[in-house]
């Protein structure tokens, strides 16, 4: 069970209160009609799926009901930081 710090509610809550939103920082293409099939597929289906540091979205379903971002290690599952949508992570890199 992960304990996740919600940056809106400002406290640690149990994983069951949240739902996972997938990789963060994926911008929807501004002009979808100009994209090639490959670029569109890349936006829709292809994810980084790293073994190590991962920036991802979480939704606090039974709390503030808002999305936020987290930086998590996908091997140890340690959550290194959580931060507001629209801001950049402090911790970057790919170390496992």
């Amino acid at each position, binding site marked *: 069970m992960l304990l996740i710090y919600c940056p809106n509610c400002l406290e640690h809550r149990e994983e069951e209160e949240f739902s996972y939103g997938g990789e963060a920082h994926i911008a929807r293409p501004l002009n979808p009609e100009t994209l090639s099939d490959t670029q569109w597929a890349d936006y*829709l289906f292809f994810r980084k799926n790293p073994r190590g540091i991962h920036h991802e979205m979480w939704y606090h379903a039974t709390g503030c009901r808002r999305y936020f971002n987290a930086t*998590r290690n996908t091997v140890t599952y340690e959550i290194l930081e959580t931060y507001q949508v629209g801001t950049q992570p402090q911790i970057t890199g790919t170390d496992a």
Partner: protein
Amino acid sequence: MKRYSGFSLLKNALSYHENWQKVWRNPTPKRDYDVVIVGGGGHGLATAYYLAKVHGITNVAVVEKGYLGGGNTARNTTIIRSNYLWDEAAQLYELSLKLWEGLSQDLNYNVMFSQRGVLNLGHNLQDMRDIERRVSANRLNGIDGEVVTPQRIKEIAPLINISPDSRYPILGASWQPRGGTARHDAVAWGYARAADALGAEMIQQTEVTGIRRKDGAVVGVETSNGFIGARKVACVTAGNSGVVAAMAGLRLPVESRPLQALVSEPIKPCLDTVVMSNAVHGYISQSDKGDLVIGAGVDSYNGYGQRGSFHVVEHTVQAICELFPAFSRVSMNRQWGGIVDTCPDACPIISKTSVDGLYFNCGWGTGGFKATPGSGYVFADTVANDRPHPLAEAFNLDRFNTGALIDEHGAAGVAH
């Protein structure tokens, strides 16, 4: 390879079973091979076997970072069935099921394939409509299946609770009598032994750390024990597929997630079939040893840690107690996780890549074990002939660009 038989058992009994032949060799890697298979799980070993047996390609190495069959092959719940909705998937899994039916004889190794039947329960009207549709599609594809009533379910699995007063009452099920289970370790060992006997080499405790390319074609793999040359490299690395693809500068549309399972203490025989439920989300069978083998849901988040969250186990056990109130007093012995590579359409990728001589077989997600023989068969054919096997054609990597997905999420039997 000395054949296993009743006679060999008797003969070896006379020497106190001390003179059995080693099941496979443990060679030091050669400088180069025709084909290097990355990943010594069930699918990789099956690929090696069919490369040798069907295509006569025996200069093959299976490179495994741990030990053979020690990853997801050893972590699944061993359920085998072929009742998939869409033609492409149904044909692939049915090929696999047909291979299962003769596998022990083919490999001269008892994989303990037991056709005890698989029930997929329906708990609401929409479940039942989906089940009717899937069973009809199966029958049109020549796959056995029938829609059964709660009374018939009770006859098949007497301990099940079909009371209309339960929280999620059982309205019916699909029943595939030819489905069942097999001994997962034996599958890996049987394929490894048979492939080894035909000349393939098992290189264990050797981790692939890079894929060397020259002029857009693969020339070999970098490993923790040095470079191994190869004309073709076939990657079958399940949860780590994305990591291996990145070594060749490729991206895959897979995400790696923990999938958990658990077993109970051994109890007397009480469940001689496989019961799966999409709506309450659990699946259960009983092993020959007597353990109840229970599959949980996949964790929602990406991970490589080979363990999952406890609350997923809790939900699964709740579902099992709902279906089988008698099991509420059974203690659980062990719980573990494996890393499954899930595709957006819940179907595998069996494909050539943009790098010449590099092939991927991945994305099996939560349902790879049942496909082991068929996956190895079509992948070996794809690698040997450098073009997709007819049954693998639809499972190419390009489907994510063209949009021709094979959406098996609804038919996967459980709501992963």
